[in-house]
């Protein structure tokens, strides 16, 4: 009995029950199916014409699958053989709807099922395999070259980025070095200035400090100068304001004069903008009794002994407690 002869509402529980593995119902269904199909065996046989067999066998032998499969039959036999060996233990399964006539009967008349010839399938297998291999190879090559291109682009970008970083680092280093040099120079200048101030402070605070106020002996009082002299360190500082520029080819020269009228050359100076002059001069260590200081105009480069007229003159005085 064909299961599909009953309604869909009746089929579903029956199919589900048989599929669940009930041996009793599966056996009864198989028996009913066998009885049902035996009805066809009651018909007297009719021998087909020879041409029918020829048509079939020509069709079969024309397929390349026949020769190919005949060379290795065991590979295809295995599933059927395995099914045969397990037939007794396998629960009865309902025949597929496509094989059941009643199911077909209820369906509307459809076009004949197109059966793909096996030979044509075997003919397409190598083509499809080759196409698949080519496609996979193309994908692999594409992936490789794409990845390699990306790698090269990334490497190029990385190099460019590294170059930019190096250039930037070099610029920063250059700027840093320049700034460092500037800071060092400024620091050195400030340090020198500080040392100078410290030195001046030490000079001013020493008890060996002596002071001289220089004036013009016979001239306007606008031009004047001051000199500090440290007899312990043998150094003097000269500062002047309102000085006139010396005549061409001439220069001012400072002299230290001892009590014995020995004239010691302290240094030469020109006049800057505003007539201001600041200079420091070392005094020979063996000179201790300086009593006067004077400024004369001498030939450019200075001279060993004063020859020109005295422009400024002052008496060196000892300060009682320093500054």
């Amino acid at each position, binding site marked *: 009995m064909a299961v599909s002869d009953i*309604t869909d509402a009746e089929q579903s529980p029956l199919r589900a029950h048989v599929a669940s593995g009930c041996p009793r119902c599966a056996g009864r269904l198989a028996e009913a199916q066998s009885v049902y199909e035996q009805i066809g065996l*009651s018909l007297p046989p009719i*021998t087909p014409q020879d041409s*029918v067999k020829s048509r079939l066998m020509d069709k079969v032998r024309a397929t390349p699958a026949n020769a190919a499969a005949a060379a290795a039959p065991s590979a*295809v036999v295995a599933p059927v053989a395995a099914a*045969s060996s397990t037939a007794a233990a396998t629960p009865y399964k309902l*025949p597929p709807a496509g094989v059941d006539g009643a199911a077909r009967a209820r369906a509307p008349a459809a076009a004949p099922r197109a059966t793909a010839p096996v030979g044509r399938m075997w003919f397409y297998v190598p083509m499809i395999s080759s196409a698949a291999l080519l496609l996979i190879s193309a994908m692999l090559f594409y992936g490789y070259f794409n990845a390699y291109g990306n790698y090269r682009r990334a490497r190029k970008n990385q190099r460019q980025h590294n170059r930019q970083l190096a250039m930037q680092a070099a610029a920063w280093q250059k700027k840093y070095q320049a700034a460092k040099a500037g800071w060092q120079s400024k620091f050195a200048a400030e340090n020198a200035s500080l040392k100078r101030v410290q030195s001046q402070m030490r000079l001013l605070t020493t008890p060996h400090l002596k002071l001289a106020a220089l004036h013009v002996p016979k001239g306007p009082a606008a031009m004047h100068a001051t000199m500090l002299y440290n007899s312990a360190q043998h150094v003097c500082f000269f500062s002047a304001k309102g000085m006139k520029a010396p005549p061409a080819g001439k220069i001012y020269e400072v002299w230290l004069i001892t009590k014995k009228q020995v004239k010691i050359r302290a240094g030469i100076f020109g006049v800057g903008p505003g007539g201001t002059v600041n200079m420091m001069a070392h005094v020979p260590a063996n000179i201790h009794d300086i009593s006067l200081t004077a400024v004369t105009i001498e030939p450019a480069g200075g001279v060993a002994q004063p020859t020109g007229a005295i422009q400024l003159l002052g008496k060196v005085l000892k300060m009682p407690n320093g500054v």
Partner: protein
Amino acid sequence: MQSETSIAGTDDLTLMQQVAAHDAMALETLYDRYSSTLLALCMRVLHRRDQAEDVLINVFWEVWNRAERYNPARGAPLTYLMTLTRCRAIDRHRRIGATPTTSLDAQEYPTESVQTEADNPLNQAACAEQRVRIQAAISHLSAPQRMTIELSFFEGLSHVEIAEKTKLPLGTVKSHIRLGLIQLRDSLRNEDEAAKDLS
């Protein structure tokens, strides 16, 4: 490759396995063994020899291409071939609109060729004996049972369609078919037991 002589005595299941392995000689043997029975079924459904032979070729071609679909757990190879042939014949019948007869009487069957399908005299005799037993079992069915079973088997009608065609209630149709098949089963079973006792 087996020789034709050796393959002629091979059982159906082995033949199906060899067909699944695309052994053309096995298919030829299977054809020689059952083409007459299957063609009779096709003729019974279609009543046109050209259509019946065309369906027969298609059935064996389908077996050749899809023999691996055969599941021995579902039944014997002959049952599979009968089911497949009946389905294809009914499909063809519905397409061409042929009108089959509605009787299971053997006298109405086309009998222009009654040569047996068996490939040896022993099988020939066994098939003939089986056919007689089935015909005897069918003859014991009531007329409504035979008619409803025939409509179901040869025309592929569902119970509802049979009820519409015969103007019988659906429950009655189901009862006729069910009781007819039970009776047919019991008759065949009794025939088998009697044959065993005789042997």
